[in-house]
């Protein structure tokens, strides 16, 4: 399949949104609201629930179903208070030694005057910084769009999974084509060049695994995801907090491809 076709699939309005996953994966959900500073971002849904009987904190970016809900959820683009709400819940999870599950589906962080005034950049930066240092295991799943810093702000986790037709990118193909070639219509070409599909996420070690998609049997598909998540959490919960932090740091530390001009210490190659 062409990369841009996959982008379209990832954005498809008929695709299940985050709440469908939380409903299938978790039981006994208690939703929690607010960042305790400014407000409650509707694009970020969070709380506590049970995954196979294991209490976990969940954070999900919700795009919304019908148009009315999509507007209410800012089309799944979190504002600074959304990232701060997420961080508050993650720190709470750390205190009570609960694993963290992030379900990510966003075109990007909210783009607007108010978001800038309230420090969108600072909010995302703070999440990267603190998530890297969480003493409890964390898993992020990108279920549709992984749009740039807006997605990364909830994806610095011990493990990162992507759905088969999810995309994860530094910039949207439309914006990329607009900037580089001054032609947003070349988005298909940009999508190809940006290497944003699940296949590349594995190649560049950004993702730890890919979940197969089968929306005709959503229950069955989620059951498999659930099993993987549960086993991962059980495994990781055995590790000491320092180990959890170190492993997460190493995972991200090793991502990148560059040239090192010394024959003796070649590093960062992909193959």
């Amino acid at each position, binding site marked *: 399949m062409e990369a841009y076709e996959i982008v379209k699939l990832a954005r498809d309005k008929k695709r299940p949104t985050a709440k469908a996953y939380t409903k299938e994966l978790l039981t006994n959900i208690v939703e929690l609201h607010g960042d305790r500073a400014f407000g409650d971002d509707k694009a970020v849904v969070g709380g506590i629930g049970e995954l196979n009987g294991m209490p976990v904190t969940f954070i999900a970016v919700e795009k919304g179903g019908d148009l009315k809900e999509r507007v209410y959820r800012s089309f799944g683009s979190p504002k600074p208070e959304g990232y701060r709400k997420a961080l508050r819940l993650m720190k709470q999870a750390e205190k009570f030694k609960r694993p963290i599950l992030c379900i990510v589906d966003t075109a990007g962080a909210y783009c607007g*005057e108010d978001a800038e005034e309230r420090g969108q950049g600072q909010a995302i930066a703070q999440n990267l910084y603190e998530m890297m240092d969480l003493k409890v295991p964390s898993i992020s799943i990108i279920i549709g769009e992984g749009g740039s810093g807006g997605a990364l702000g909830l994806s610095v986790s011990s493990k990162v999974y992507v759905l088969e037709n999810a995309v994860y990118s530094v910039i949207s193909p439309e914006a990329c084509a607009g900037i580089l070639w001054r032609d947003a219509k070349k988005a298909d070409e940009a999508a190809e060049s940006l290497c944003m599909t699940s296949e590349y996420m594995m190649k560049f070690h950004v993702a730890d695994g890919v979940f197969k998609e089968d929306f005709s049997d959503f229950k069955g598909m989620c059951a498999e995801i659930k099993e993987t998540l549960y086993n991962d959490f059980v495994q990781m919960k055995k590790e000491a907090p320092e180990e959890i932090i170190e492993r997460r740091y190493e995972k991200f530390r090793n991502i*990148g491809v*560059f040239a090192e001009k010394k024959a003796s210490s070649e590093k960062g190659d992909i193959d």
Partner: protein
Amino acid sequence: MLSLTELLKKSKNTIENGGRQFARDEKVKCPACGKEEYRNTIKENNMVCPFCEHHYKISARTRIRQVFDKDSFHELFDNIESADPLEFKGYKRRIEKARISSGEKEGVVCGTASLNKVKCAVFVMEPGFMMGSMGSALGEKVCRLFEYACENHLPVIGFTASGGARMQEGILSLMQMAKVSGAVKKHSNAGGLYICVLTNPTTGGVTASFAMLGDIIIAEPNAVVGFAGRRVIESTMKKSLPDDFQKSEFVLEHGFIDKIVDRRELSMTLGRILNLHREVI
């Protein structure tokens, strides 16, 4: 034999190392106020317009010379350079062009330098190198610098100037944000001091990572500091934004930076902050 590109790069750096002196002093027009002044006069004024205090864009090495003790800079990790992992159309050529025009191998210069004899780990982003955009090599260099500072118990002083992530490296450039933020956290957990100076422009992925993570964050006057691009916001919101939007003064007003410091007082201010931390560094 040196290739033409090598020669161009070399000559640029020779000028830089010798301290930029213009053989033929000529007048330049300030892009902000339009008044003309001799280049050397502006240079003596730390590349600040004597009439309107416009802060000219300066190279990383000029910055180092302005701020740190004479000849104290020792470069590190300059063997790390960008590759082309995505084989992105036109990327290699862009890098080569950036190398020639900036005289630098990558968008950041790292090393150690002293300020009032206090040794620091230093990174300075080079606005002339693809707008200081962050790719794998840049992320790796800054990351290694923080790790070096951590091992050697050094404070970090960083200067940011960036258009954001380098899209030609796709997802890998995005991941550098996480990677560097992690290294900053480690340095911080070890008690290290990190002072970040935001210069024009500091935007996108750099703002959303290490630019906003300093213990103390300073900005130069009138610098653009923000996450989303101004034009993108304007077209999304379908309205025009005020002139001061995303300027340092705006960011200060909203509580996201500690201080705005004129370039001519920067070295003194940084020195004072370092001195106030003398018992812990």
